[in-house]
């Protein structure tokens, strides 16, 4: 059963130095408040997993929380580069960052394998690309047709962190709109933290909603607007202006350091 706790307590209980952490949310429902709490609590040596690192991992990488990044697209959507991510890869600032790089299809399938309790997933992909020969991507032959396919190893994070629209007092979680790989991330992880816009007495049924039953979630914390500058459909809109303005902050180590001080 999920425990309903404060955000600070959820992060303290679920995220430890050296953990493999997946914060998911595909443009929508990105758990920014939880990511900021990880920065405030000074976690180190994390292996961060996320399909689209987005601003949240730019911030965690710049803050020195990460040792390694497992990802498939590291840009500021519609704006340009993630400069903290680039600075870490190109110049090792504030620390070198090891990369494990995939396509979106590969990452999604790795989560599916993890959620399914399988060691790998199979897809038709990567052939001919420069990504094809890394440790978590291997050729595999179909035992039925002989077709040359690609196997990707399962993701099994220590902890998944996602944001959702709401939960009830028993910790059952409901999310809808663009649902990304949040369900797969939670089900493939050892522990999970879900921040929600609101905790309600009972969840009315929504045919379009994904439900994470309380017994699949470790901790639920009520954090209104916890996805900002991402958004929660039905509660907030994406703060596109913040994404545009992040470019200047992220580009400059001093401006970023000031941002980091203001966050504490």
């Amino acid at each position, binding site marked *: 059963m999920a425990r309903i706790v404060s955000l600070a307590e959820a992060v303290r209980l679920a995220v430890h130095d050296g953990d493999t952490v997946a914060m998911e949310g*595909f*443009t*929508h429902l990105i758990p920014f408040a939880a990511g900021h709490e990880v920065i405030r609590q000074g976690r180190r040596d994390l292996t961060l997993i996320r*399909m*689209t690192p987005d601003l949240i991992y730019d911030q965690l990488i710049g803050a020195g929380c990460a040792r390694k990044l497992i*990802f*498939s*697209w*590291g*840009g500021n*959507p*519609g*704006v*340009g*580069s*993630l400069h903290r*991510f*680039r600075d870490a*890869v*190109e110049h090792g600032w504030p620390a070198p960052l090891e990369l494990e*790089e*995939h*396509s*979106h*299809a590969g990452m*999604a*399938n790795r*989560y*599916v394998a993890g959620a399914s309790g399988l060691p790998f997933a199979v*897809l*038709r*992909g*990567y*052939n*001919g*690309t*420069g*990504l094809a020969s890394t440790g978590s991507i291997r050729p595999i032959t179909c035992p039925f047709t002989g*077709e*040359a396919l690609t196997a990707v190893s399962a993701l099994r994070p220590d902890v998944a962190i996602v944001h959702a629209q709401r939960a009830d007092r028993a910790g059952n979680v409901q999310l809808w*709109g*663009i*649902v*990304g*790989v949040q*369900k*797969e991330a939670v089900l493939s992880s050892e522990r999970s933290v879900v921040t929600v816009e609101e905790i309600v007495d009972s969840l009315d049924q929504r045919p*379009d909603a*994904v439900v994470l039953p309380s017994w699949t979630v470790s901790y639920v914390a009520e954090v209104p607007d916890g996805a900002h500058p991402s*958004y929660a*459909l039905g509660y907030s*809109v*994406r703060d*596109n*202006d913040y*994404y*545009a303005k992040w470019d200047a902050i992220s580009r400059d180590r001093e401006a970023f350091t000031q941002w980091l001080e203001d966050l504490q």
Partner: protein
Amino acid sequence: MTDCDYTSDEMMAVSAARALRDGMTCFVGIGLPSTAANLARATHAPGLVLIYESGTIGAKPGSLPLSIGDGILAQTADAVVGVPEIFNYWLQPGRIDVGFLGAAQIDKFGNINTTVIGGDYRKPKVRLPGAGGAPEIAASCREVIVVVRQSNRSFVERVDFITSVGYGSGPGDRERLGLTGAGPKKIITDLGVLEPGPATLEFRLTGVYPGVEIPTVRERTGWDLTVAPDLETIAPPSTAELAALRELQARGGVQSTRSDG
């Protein structure tokens, strides 16, 4: 150019929109491809089915989204599915007619690099965003159209890193690699249109915009560009196309023409 009541970026968006036919299914990248696809839907192709990798199928945004996951896409879609489903059920089997992609670097065989430029992979000169959905879009859509501004830095003999495969090293490579889609059919730029030569699969210039001189296109191409014998001069934007594009952009809030995955 003499007649400058439109920009080269506007000409590019219009030219790219014209490449899409009504009723097609189109897997759309954000930035230039998304602008062009939405322009097509606002003009000659109201039945164009827009599919974004965020899992939004049949999105009908009234303004240009900044990201592939803006709320407007989910709210106007026929269906919203999870990310594993959009790639596994919808893209992988070859159901999508056209993949509409941007590029940071592209070579004469239409291979796309959005990963690293210069240096080596571990210590690149420039770290780009990476693959996103593009490798499988390039592999599995029935055909691919690339929309990208042309410069001799972005149009190279051989990409530094193959993120998404075009024709690999030439004829036969897609078949050998088991890529099910036909590959890139057009590269639409701010100067004109390039298409693969029938025998070599090397991209050559098949169309230019009004006022664009061939030497200019050659200067902005990093390989020895061939010009098709039947080179076409592409019609300038019509009043209706230009009005529709400007209206979309005015309603777009933050307008971006950056291309990414």
